[in-house]
């Protein structure tokens, strides 16, 4: 790998030129994948009591990082940019304020940051990191749903084939799995709170699925 990590100044410059701010100006309104569902309206009109709570954490920045986990220089660079090191253990995640990093595979991590900071962080990565790696802004391709409440585990049991018991699925664990025939990255953020990273194109389907799966417990939409 070492020869791949030696780059000429021209090559380094080329990696920086590829970065562009994907956020449009203020004149264009950003719309999340569930914009059409009008969750804000439902949050006002809908029930306030129920076993499952749903909130879309919309328009966040999703950065997909791929690199060699044995490269100490790059690990240090990640820590300089985000203030926290990559989770190297399988199926784990770390958090630092508004930043969270999910382990996706042995050489791949999903970094979620506030939407407005995405471009800054991406640029910082290009300045700090050297060598052979890939950082892709996939913010437009996915969205995050936060599901919580007393019956959230029962609702998820209908949707994913993984063991959700506390002993098998502790807080902080991350699992990429099938969610109701679609895919989702499920992360436990609290005893009764989970975050799902889902595909944009499946957002409507999963929104309908969650409504159906939560019907017996009562679904509370939060905005």
């Amino acid at each position, binding site marked *: 790998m070492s020869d791949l990590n030696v780059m000429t100044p021209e090559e380094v410059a080329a990696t920086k030129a590829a970065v562009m701010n994907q956020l449009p100006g203020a004149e264009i309104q950003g719309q999340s994948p569930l914009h059409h569902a009008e969750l804000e309206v439902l949050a006002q009109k809908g029930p306030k009591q129920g076993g499952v709570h749903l909130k879309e954490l919309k328009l966040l920045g999703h950065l997909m990082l791929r690199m060699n986990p044995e490269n100490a220089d790059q690990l240090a660079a990640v820590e300089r940019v985000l203030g926290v090191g990559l989770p190297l253990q*399988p199926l784990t995640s770390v958090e630092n304020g508004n930043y969270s990093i999910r382990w*996706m*595979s*042995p050489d*791949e991590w999903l970094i979620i940051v506030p939407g407005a900071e995405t471009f800054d962080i991406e640029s910082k990565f290009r300045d700090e990191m050297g060598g052979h790696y890939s950082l892709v802004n996939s913010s437009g391709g996915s969205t995050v749903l936060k599901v919580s409440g007393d019956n959230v585990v029962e609702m998820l049991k209908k949707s994913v*084939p*993984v063991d959700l018991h506390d002993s098998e699925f502790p807080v902080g664990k991350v699992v*990429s*799995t*099938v969610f109701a025939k679609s895919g989702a990255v499920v992360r436990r953020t609290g005893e009764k709170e989970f975050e799902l990273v889902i595909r944009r194109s499946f957002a409507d389907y999963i929104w309908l699925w969650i409504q159906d799966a939560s019907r017996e417990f009562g679904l509370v939409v939060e905005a």
Partner: protein
Amino acid sequence: MLHIYCPHCGEYREEEEFHAAGQAHLARPLDPEACSDKEWGEFLFFRKNPRGLHHELWVHSAGCRKFFNVTRDTQTYEIKEVYKIGEKPSVVAE
């Protein structure tokens, strides 16, 4: 339904998350131009179909999306061993 251990995630998952990718340990001929039609055709199309132990390639498609090898008994469906790409199987047919 098979319960498959993913060596990259380090835990058992449902078969639903995986895809079988055919026979393992297929070496592509180093110089395809020098192959006879028979050799090349056998590499491309001919696969083992044993009754008993079989080495297969699987991918954890809904999880970490990594490939790995599985030694499985095609008669009982029992998975004898799971090992990463590049490693040698310890359970082999006699």
